């Protein structure tokens, strides 16, 4: 059940443009590598890379989810080597920060020139890992959010806005 609209498509577009501008200023002349975390960050990544006004490169990764196996691991690794690169990790939501921290730690072991985190949504209520978010779209309260790539049991990713879902998956 879709509830209230948290951020409409115009608000999202404005914020993505702002973040793209900030990245363009901060990384001028550095050819940043934007690495998106599939699948939820895909629409954000797609819009963000077009809001960046400097040359950049794009790659994606995905990680296993809890219940899939013995431990967290990359399901899909980057195709572009990150060593010596200025990496911007693009995620949809930072909650506990545990998944993101695993990805950050793994990529840092590959010796990038720098690594920054860009998150569409920051939900700090249950944060465990102290993740530094360099570029933050929106801070959200303790609600389940769908739309703009975020799903509820595989649905609603295609919605252009971010909405509150009426319940959390059991």
């Amino acid at each position, binding site marked *: 059940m879709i509830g209230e609209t948290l951020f409409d498509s115009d608000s999202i577009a404005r914020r993505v443009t702002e973040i793209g501008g900030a990245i363009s200023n901060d990384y001028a002349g550095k050819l940043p590598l934007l690495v998106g975390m599939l699948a939820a960050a895909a629409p954000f990544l797609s819009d963000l890379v077009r809001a960046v006004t400097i040359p950049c490169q794009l790659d994606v990764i995905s990680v296993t989810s*809890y219940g899939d196996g013995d431990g967290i691991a990359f399901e899909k690794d980057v195709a572009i080597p990150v060593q010596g690169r200025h990496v911007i990790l693009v995620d949809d939501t930072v909650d506990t920060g545990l998944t993101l921290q695993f990805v950050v730690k793994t990529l840092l072991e590959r010796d990038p020139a720098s690594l920054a985190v860009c998150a569409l949504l920051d939900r700090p209520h249950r944060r465990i890992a102290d993740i530094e978010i360099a570029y933050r779209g929106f801070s959200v309260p303790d609600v389940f959010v769908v739309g703009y790539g975020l799903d509820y049991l595989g649905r609603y990713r295609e919605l252009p806005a971010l909405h509150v879902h009426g319940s959390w998956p059991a």
Partner: protein
Amino acid sequence: MSFAHASEAELARLFDFYRIPWQYEPRSFPIAWNQAGRPVEFFTPDFYLPGYDLYIEVTVAKPIHNTRKNRKLRLLRSYHPYVNVKLFTRRDIGRIFSRSLMRAS
């Protein structure tokens, strides 16, 4: 390892999934003393995550029944302000797992 509640066991499995070192109830903190200065009440958080220097207390009681636990947490934070502790409610645990299970969905 035996846990007091299934939610604690599930949280331990989640930490294992993320390869996060954890300890179960490693330390008790005094939170009340008698007139002789001897501790008479302790608070023992469920988990300690040494990598984050963070204690986590899990409560599965309904919010209306959390008064006693909240009192203990207040005392812990008052007498041991250097201790970093978080309370995860039943709702928090459920939401952590639903998010974790859905990450790659």
